[in-house]
């Protein structure tokens, strides 16, 4: 297992409903990132289809593994990279139950998927109308260490990242479709989740305009000390490479020993009080 490797933040604009075009763009970015030494390339939330799909999502959702995942699995194999992308996942047990999913594929094929747990349904967001929430956090053993996946609004709920970290993830990947009005929140929360979990956090946001919503980009790789290792441009497509070096975690974890100091009994209190809210 590698202790040190390069990650590419592939901040792209997606054309809604155009899976072929979006996959071509993903392929192009993976090839470019690989040439720069990246072993992991991360794309935004719902990057295969675009974000604002409304009822068209029923035509675009597909199973995972499935057609798009197969293509990107082959790409990962051919280029020897790990790729994270977003896709509306159609349940293989029903005909119209859809999840907002993040997928991880690697040089040896499909590794795993995560189904978004917290679905924003307020303001301009209408995810609960379309998606069923996931019920599990997701951490996968890979050649690049244990990697955890979360999606966008999940980051507002520290317990998702915390659980992901407690399951051993030293790199938490958050793929996102965050409009510009939420920029301050995400810039703050991405750093907070990295610090409080003494882990690397890679945040990759969508960019461009969909239905009047301007996605701000600003993707970043944050170290366990909260320092921004790499950051993409705001409001423009960009590809930025940063290095994850797991040895950076130990000195932070030693003198900012958040995981050591966890008080599990408070989690029971949290549950008890959250139920009474």
């Amino acid at each position: 297992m590698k202790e040190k490797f390069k990650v590419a933040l592939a901040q792209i604009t997606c054309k809604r409903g155009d899976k072929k075009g979006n996959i071509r763009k993903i392929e192009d970015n993976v090839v470019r990132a690989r040439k720069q030494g990246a072993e992991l390339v991360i794309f935004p939330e719902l990057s295969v289809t675009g974000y604002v799909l409304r009822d068209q999502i029923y035509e675009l959702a597909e199973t995972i593994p499935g057609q798009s995942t197969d293509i990107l699995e082959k790409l990962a194999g051919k280029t020897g990279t790990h790729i994270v992308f977003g896709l509306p996942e159609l349940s293989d047990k029903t005909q119209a139950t859809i999840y907002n999913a993040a997928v991880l594929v690697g040089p040896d094929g499909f590794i795993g998927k995560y189904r978004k747990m917290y679905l924003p349904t307020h303001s301009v967001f209408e995810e609960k109308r379309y998606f069923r929430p996931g019920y599990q956090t997701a951490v996968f053993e890979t050649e690049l260490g244990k990697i955890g996946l979360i999606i966008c609004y999940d980051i507002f709920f520290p317990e998702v990242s915390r659980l992901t970290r407690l399951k051993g993830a030293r790199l938490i990947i958050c793929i996102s479709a965050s409009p510009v009005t939420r920029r301050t929140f995400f810039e703050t929360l991405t750093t907070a989740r990295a610090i409080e979990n003494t882990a690397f956090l890679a945040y990759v946001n969508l960019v461009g305009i969909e239905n009047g919503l301007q996605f701000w980009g600003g993707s970043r790789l944050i170290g366990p000390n909260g320092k921004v290792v790499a950051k993409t441009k705001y409001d423009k497509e960009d590809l930025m490479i940063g290095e994850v070096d797991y040895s950076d975690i130990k000195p932070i974890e030693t003198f900012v020993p958040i995981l050591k100091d966890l008080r599990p009994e408070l989690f029971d209190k949290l549950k008890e009080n959250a139920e009474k809210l």
Partner: protein
Amino acid sequence: MELTSSVLDLNWSEVETKIRYFIKDYVEKSGAEGIVLGLSGGIDSCTAAAFSALAIDGEKVLGLLLPEQETYNTQDIDHAKFVAEKFGFKTQMIDITPTLRLFYNTIPVFEIADKICKGNVKARTRMIYIYYYANRLNSLVCGSSDKSEVMMGYFTKWGDIAADISPIMDLFKTQVRKLARHIGLPKEIATKPASPMLWPGQLAEEELGIKYETLDLILYGLEHFMEPEEIAKQLGLKRELVDKMKRRWLYLEHKRGMPLTTKIEYRTVGADFRLPHTFY
């Protein structure tokens, strides 16, 4: 939340970037060759036109000056031409008086004394000219409605509100004035009293019965779910005035959306036929 004028202050450079990006992106993705807009010489249309020219090549932007005899105002025409020259977009002036007269003379039930019905004919006639040009030029119509007007329903249905995009519609009137100053519109235009120009001497603030400085704070409070009682208390207003503005905002929602139908079938336009506005 404290309701002071500072709540309406935004980072104008960021707002400028967002609006320019929005216009450019939409025009490019739609495949349109340019933008057409009605240019009255008022603050809103001057700002929308200036932004259109900043976002795309000014050569691709056409401001239509559509004056008519009753409300003809030399100063407005001068302001419109000044902004066109400053921001480098084209203009064309067409006197719509003969067209309006034709309507007045051929509508059997036309009532000259009913200034609202008559005024709406003017707004809709302007819309016809603007859309004609947009169609001919394969261009988009850029609206110039602001949030104060839209929340108050202070516009003519299918008239001045009609547009393909409305880039300043999420900004209150007082914010549009500040933004206009930010991009270099002269104070004289930015602070000019607003008028829909539907009849001589018509002034928006007189008709609405409130100054925009106050109205915008009331609307900001309502937008942020504040209780009318609290808004009135903070602004030192009578509760009745805030209630009146709230009622007007709520009751005129029908002017802001698709026409209502009754649900009969599986998926219904305007109800649960939920599609993205565009696929661009």
